[in-house]
């Protein structure tokens, strides 16, 4: 909802969330699938280097999403294997 308000001012927004269904429902235009609900931008359970690579990929995917034109709520999935559950 904050994303929508910011976009109303003409600034494109990307929402990183593990709850993509919720993001789509409220009509956020660009959604990036995050790791887990308590920690969408990384995974503290991973070794430091793996977490660093994961974070980097999420940010890269997010920057890509920001530069992509969309017509309706669109989910961008980072090129990583997420821990399950």
């Amino acid at each position, binding site marked *: 909802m904050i994303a929508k308000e910011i976009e109303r001012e003409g600034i494109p927004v990307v929402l990183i969330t593990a*709850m993509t*269904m919720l993001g789509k429902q409220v009509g956020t235009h660009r959604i990036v699938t995050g790791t887990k609900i308590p920690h969408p931008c990384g995974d503290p359970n991973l070794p430091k280097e793996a977490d660093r690579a994961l974070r980097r990929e999420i940010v890269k995917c997010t920057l890509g999403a920001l530069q992509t034109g969309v017509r309706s709520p669109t989910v961008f999935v980072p090129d990583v294997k997420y821990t399950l559950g």
Partner: protein
Amino acid sequence: MKLELAEFPVKNVRFGKQTGYADGILEIDKDELLTSVLEDRKIAWADVDVAFPNEPTRVLNVRDVVEPRIKVSGPGCVFPGILGPAETVGEGRTHRLSGVTVMPAAEYRPTILSGAYAQNTSILDMWGPAAQITPFASTINVILLLKLTDSVSELEAHNTIQLAELKVAQRLAETTRNRTPENIETFELFEADSTLPRVVYILGFLTGLHGPHSLVAYYGLPIQEALPTFVHPNEFLDGAFTTDARRGNGGHASTWDWMNQPMVLRLLREHGRRLNFLGVILQRTRFETEFGKQVSATCASQIARLLRADGAIITRTVPSGNNFMDAMITLQACERKGIKTALMTPEWGGTDGTDLPLVFYVPEATAIVSAGSLERELKLSVPSKVIGVEKGHLARLYLGDQPFDPWDELDRDGWRDIIGGIDWFGGMRITCKEY
């Protein structure tokens, strides 16, 4: 499995020379009770007080509520896994003292200072506006005041408070052992008319993975990351479900709420009349990915289908939007398997009820029952008696909050500040009208 629940109504509670029950009067020998409570070396100080309905009494530091019950015949005990072995309960005869509760009001030095797993408490007002929204303003409440020693860990604090309240409840219920009850209600999932609709209850409840206690325990075992499982409704009535006694927030269901689970009781009473009650699917909610939520929903709906359910009633606990998604996704999974659903939940909506009432929905959610508001404000007036806080001291419900004077008027910004204030299971008496 047949359970006889024998009722001994309590109309008055008083202190006396001998703990006993007669003619609706529960007499408590305070010294005897306190001596037994203080046997636990982790309790530094204890006292007992009583809060009566309609009196301008305010109780602070409330951690949990239980109803005094005791098993007089049949396997196991009330509060299995805690006061006895983890033997399957829900059979034989259980005595209950109705109209009375045991409510621990406890203080201890926290080691978790913030976040979801920090200790918290709630308020009980026995009169005024807050009395309208909680079942505990209509019961006589035996308040067990506890101060724990400084060295307890968070898990020890839970164990100590819980054991004290359950033992006191057990002692009080023991007074009924050889007495004749005022009435007996029998609960059994007998073979019902096969033309009646087959109904299952999917009981969602939030539990946490990262703290000393997950919030809900089954036979004393805190439920953590678990897939849905299936239980007999009678187990609820024998205290198979207990809660984290460090977190008395009114946004959680207390042990009393699980023992007197209104949806379970109603479905048991309708069994063989309007419906064929199949049992209860327990569903731990708040999986941390949508994938986890989908797997949990798939599993719960599959148990319902294997039971050949025509319909499912779905509820959930704790005001978390994250765990609400689990309930909605489960509803969708049931409908897709051809099982009709009805969801009951309290709603958000802001202080005046005009905000978004539900944070997430699925198109299949076409039958929703509201169980009231999570966000209405409350104005509480000045009490004439305060239990749970020493004279001149301040109180607070959450660590890190601004302390307040419990002897003063209070403005609270949600019903969850009142013990029993949020109705997860459909037990409350308030209705609303469109005008």
